[in-house]
């Protein structure tokens, strides 16, 4: 039995709560059992994180802030946006908290609340705009658009790489051909967005 299930049985779990706290809200919005309530503040997550140095708060701090109900601070922290999805924290967590998935949930909430404060959200949006319109990713277009908008000073340094992508790797500078089931995919995503909002 998972720790979360034990809490449920005792009536102190997420589902028994009348007024859902911020911690529970995040936990409930995550697919599967996140076990977020089980955090013991050991800090293994931050110590394992390759991008911790670039974060406003370590993951451990974020979980303490969630428990303290510091919604505005959590949702405007760059921490989840700096997550590289390497799952080191997830496999090392002694409480089996699905930390990477929790980070995705916080990003979702931060976007909905309009609190995000990094260029990373924009990268995700550009990427997904392409997927929602072609059904396929478009690496050159994505990197081009994102870097022109946010890292223009790096462009001269990137020129040799861009040329190599076209010549050595034989990549096409044109957008990909749309998938045949584009209408079908759009219907699925439209319904999924309605379900997400519900």
């Amino acid at each position: 039995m998972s720790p979360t299930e034990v809490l449920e049985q005792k009536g102190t779990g997420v589902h028994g709560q009348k007024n859902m706290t911020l911690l529970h809200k995040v936990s409930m919005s995550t697919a599967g059992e996140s076990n977020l309530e089980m955090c013991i503040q050991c800090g293994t997550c931050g110590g394992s994180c390759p991008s911790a140095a670039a974060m406003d708060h370590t993951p451990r701090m974020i979980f303490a802030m969630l428990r303290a109900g510091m919604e505005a601070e959590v949702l405007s922290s760059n921490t989840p946006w700096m997550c590289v999805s390497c799952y080191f924290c997830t496999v090392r967590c002694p409480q089996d908290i699905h930390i990477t998935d929790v980070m995705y949930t916080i990003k979702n909430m931060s976007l909905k609340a309009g609190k995000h404060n990094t260029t990373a959200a924009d990268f995700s949006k550009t990427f997904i705009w392409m997927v929602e319109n072609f059904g396929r990713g478009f690496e050159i277009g994505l990197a081009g658009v994102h870097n022109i908008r946010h890292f223009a000073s790096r462009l001269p340094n990137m020129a040799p790489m861009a040329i190599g992508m076209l010549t050595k790797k034989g990549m096409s500078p044109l957008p990909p051909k749309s998938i045949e089931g584009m209408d079908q995919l759009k219907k699925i995503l439209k319904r999924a967005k309605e379900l997400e909002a519900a």
Partner: protein
Amino acid sequence: MSDYIFYPGCSLESSAKAYYDSVTVVCKQLGIGLKEIEDWNCCGATEYFSLELTPAYALIARNLALAEQQANGNKEIIAPCSACYLNLAKTDHYMHDDKAFGKKINEALAAGGLHYTPGKLAVRHLLDVVINEIGLEAVKGKVTKPLSGLRVAPYLGCMLPRPDYSKRYSDSEHPDELDSLLSALGAEVVDFPLKTHCCGGHMTQIGPDTAFELIRRLISAAEEVKADVIVTVCPMCQMNLDAFQEQMNNHFKTDYKMPILFFTQLMGISFGEKTENLGFGSEFISAGEAMSRIGVKIAEPEKAPAVKKPSGLPMPPPLKKIKQFAETTEEANR
């Protein structure tokens, strides 16, 4: 000959054509039949999860539903890209584990007339199929040109060994599957302590300084153990370590020249395949010198319209103008 459902993913069609070519050649040699999912879509990488969870999982589930429809008796999907592999595996895992969640995703799929039965298909990476289904003995039987004398650093990156829902790998931090495979090819496998560390992922785009540091760690560690090449199993890892190596060098004033190859490219060489059929020559840091050490000459790829100087292609406008443009878009974004 056993057949598998094949999900190549977007990278294998653009930046990682060398992986696509070598996967095709190697699977043919080993009798692994690949039936590509018709009309598959992008898996959303790590980016769609960041925006909205339900559409992100529904996007991936469309591929699973199509695969189930077209399965024709096959029960396993091979995805050579680590991010695609994890996304497919993760969606199947959560749809199966969390029934309400599975129902919600299927409700979205129903809008497009599709359905996926959670747990119906097993998602696997090619490395795992080669090790556990084909077996190292069969691989050794195919080796006609052992890679003797080539020092290789096995590099798996993150998403293959972690979180590993089906427990297919020996360890989440120090798995030895790739080591054993490369040994079977006759290569000299170095003990690479950072074999499952992060390549930087999307940080090359959103926080380049962090990405450069992560890339530097991996390259310098491989250099320290005197590896001739780093061997990867993922298009993202290959791209970050190879295409960004020069920018990383500029950033740290270093001069590393570590070639980054796909494991299937080396498998192909050891099976006696020609380099031009395995995508050699498409890497930024040439593997020519390393391969010549074991007597493999890399044929010059047929040059498409030759570009001698950067000036031959449309160049970005002068720096000043770009800065102005960036400032105005930034303001517009606020």
